């Protein structure tokens, strides 16, 4: 298939940035979206032009490094996948595809389609852990965890930290990301001990870093490549309320 691509180009964080238009031909429907950009870049290099910079690594939907708004949707038109898992069979001959970096105050653009998501690390550093040192812990089977609780924790723990929730949210809120970690550790006995301090510290760090508030529109859940449920946000709100009442 032949396509027209409108891609955001921005030399560095200070540059204003603009859309550039490229044409690309003979793309196989079995080609992945990022392979399509590889082909474009090969073409640009051969023409002596600057290739498009984008973030990617594992290319199997688990590292969370790829991003992109594709025609306005984080991770593109398919559901429950990351950009690297998107295949060109979701597009048709003659389509125009608009590709942009994610826009959020806490995710500044570094170059072209590459953004900085260091703010997520900082939120987790504020409390997204269980305080145990290496060694000196009890036997793994000494902590009994009901099957369903382990599954629930696993649902929340599936978050890949890509930031699609922030990109999808009109307020650029990180509530789903934060809630996934708070929820995972709040349902498990290992995490309960520090639950109150954790939720307060992580939420205050999230606010400090410039993420917006949650207005329950559910856009984050709709675009999350790992289908993480907004019920985790409800749990986090309860945890937060209880923690503050305890004070």
């Amino acid at each position: 298939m032949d396509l027209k691509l409108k891609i955001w180009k921005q030399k560095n964080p200070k540059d204003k940035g603009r859309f550039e238009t490229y044409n690309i031909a003979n793309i196989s429907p079995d080609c992945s979206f990022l392979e399509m950009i590889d082909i474009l870049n090969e073409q640009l290099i051969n023409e002596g032009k600057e290739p498009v910079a984008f973030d990617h690594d594992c290319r199997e939907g688990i590292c969370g490094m790829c991003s992109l708004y594709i025609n306005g949707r984080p991770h593109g038109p398919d559901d429950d996948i990351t950009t690297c898992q998107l295949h060109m069979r979701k597009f048709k001959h003659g389509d125009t595809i608009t590709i942009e970096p994610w826009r959020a105050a806490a995710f500044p653009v570094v170059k072209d389609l590459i953004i900085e998501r260091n703010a997520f690390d900082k939120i987790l550093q504020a409390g997204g852990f269980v305080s145990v040192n290496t060694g000196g812990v009890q036997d793994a089977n000494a902590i009994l965890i009901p099957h369903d609780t382990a599954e629930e924790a696993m649902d929340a723990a599936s978050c890949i930290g890509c930031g699609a929730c922030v990109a999808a949210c009109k307020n650029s809120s990180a509530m789903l990301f934060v809630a996934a970690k708070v929820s995972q550790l709040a349902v498990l006995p290992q995490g309960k001990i520090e639950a109150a301090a954790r939720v307060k510290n992580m939420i205050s760090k999230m606010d400090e870093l410039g993420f917006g508030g949650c207005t329950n529109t559910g856009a984050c859940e709709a675009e999350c490549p790992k289908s993480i449920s907004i019920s985790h946000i409800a749990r986090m709100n309860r945890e937060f309320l209880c923690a503050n009442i305890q004070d």
Partner: protein
Amino acid sequence: MSVLNSKSPEGNLAEKWSNYKSSCKLVNPSNKRKLDIIIIGTGLGGASAAAALGELGYNVKVFCYQDSPRRAHSIAAQGGINAAKNYQNDGDSIYRLFYDTIKGGDYRSREASVYRLAEVSNSIIDQCVAQGVPFARDYGGLLDNRSFGGAQVSRTFYARGQTGQQLLLGAYSALNRQIAKGSVEMYYRRDMQDVVVVDGKARGVVVRNLATGKLEKYFGHAVVLATGGYGNVFYLSTNAMGSNGSPVWQAYKRGAQFANPCFTQIHPTCIPVHGDYQSKLTLMSESLRNDGRIWVPKDKSDAEKIRNKQLSPTDLPEEKRDYYLERRYPAFGNLVPRDVASRAAKERCDAGHGVGTGLAVYLDFADAIKRLGKENVEEKYGNLFQMYEKITDENPYNTPMMIYPAVHYTMGGLWVDYNLMTTVPGLYCIGEANFADHGANRLGASALMQGLADGYFVLPYTIGNFLADEIHTKRISIDSKEFVETEKQVNDRINKLMSIKGKQSVDSFHKRLGKIMWEYCGMGRNEEGLKKALDLIPKLRKEFWQDVKIPGTTDEFNPELEKAGRVADFLELGELMVRDALNRKESCGGHFREEMQTEDGEAKRDDENFAYVASWEYKGDNQDPEMYKENLDYEFVKRVQRNYK
């Protein structure tokens, strides 16, 4: 030829590590604060080491090339992690895990190191559970296990098909805790360029800040490389796009020996190649072989009809299918080790029984769905099935998956002694980056075990043994001669790459190298082909240095320049792999020399001549490397022909 000393402690197998721990040197807490440790890489090895060393009180600096430490490729490991807990009461023990690992590695690993790995495996599970890793549980609340290749017991702990992710997020959370406390400093988007050696000891690194393009220098009393494997030398592999061999290769050029470079693992269950534009291959977890059955059509004519889409695999009656692993290896069936399963798939496809493009076999879940119900299969493998469907547009609940072997893991790596120290004092290497524990073939679910064993439970002891003698070493200025000189060399090389201004892209060279490696140093190797590769690779390297085209400049975010540096190193590393494969005139594990096979096509080992680790020392750019040997004199295990029948 010189012989290497592994420094394995004396004594009985089961006592070696305890003896070591009770007699190694210690560093007192106030001195730990004065000691700096550099760690490159934040996968399971790097993140766990950084967390554990930070907790002990050392000053740790950690570097990764991604935008966050959580992106490291350990995250993509799917199936599970082994441990000798024997929670299933099915006969497991530390000795059995040790024995399976030695046997799985085709008797080419070091007894003492592998025993230690099996010994600490149980602590890893305890540690991860304490961190809140949501391993699968049964209905009584206890931990669940599954089976993996090369074992007859169920000892693999798992978190759906995302075990690597959950373990890495556990290590990352421990790392985050130390970053918050200030004991670990995290540097992201940094690509290591070189090791700085001062008076014979590793004392720092030069890294490139990928976002700004600037070179930066950092001092450490010791340097730890946790940089993963070099499977991307093949271009197409299951590794992440950024996974590379450059840090270990630069260390090699600074004097660290490279052991068994030709030992590469080709994983049997990957989604087959489908086009020239393809950038990577996707693994389908080995855990699928617990319930999936592998087959090809018995008759070539049926295979042809299926390839031409005149026949659907689901319509082929049972008696016309060849479940070749169950037929050839009745004792282990579909759960034979990876090297055996991969070769068997290649053999069937080469004989004309392949499906899809001809280079694929079926992995069928119809029986499992009948036996367990679709819901149970979905709970166990749901995310893998979804991943498969998104890539291939076929639904594995209705039609069998197609799979083919692909490059997955490298058992070779920097040579390390029992302390995990390379041949450069103060330079450590952990996880996949070293050669240590898997011999000629790694068993499934053992990579995660090794990464975390090295980082949480081995390195914190062994590095202390070295650092105890460094408490009087003052921090060395990064403006000192050695730092400045190393930085200049890195800078010169980058400028040289940029000044070529040729006609061909970096990727085009990488693809050509990959084809040479896969053709001549892949699943089957022979003398003629290896010699051919030894002729082709230097020519390709020469062409690269004359005609590569790198757009942009050095002082900006320049992904093409990053790739160029990595491919330049792969073009040298690939040659060493071929040289090593040529030297090893035996078949063992993942290294299959076609001249050396039994009558029924199994690998034929030669213990008389090759029961050693081949460790290569760099001698200069235009000189042949020198081979050292570490003799694998087994004290406790009797070598036998591997038999999975």
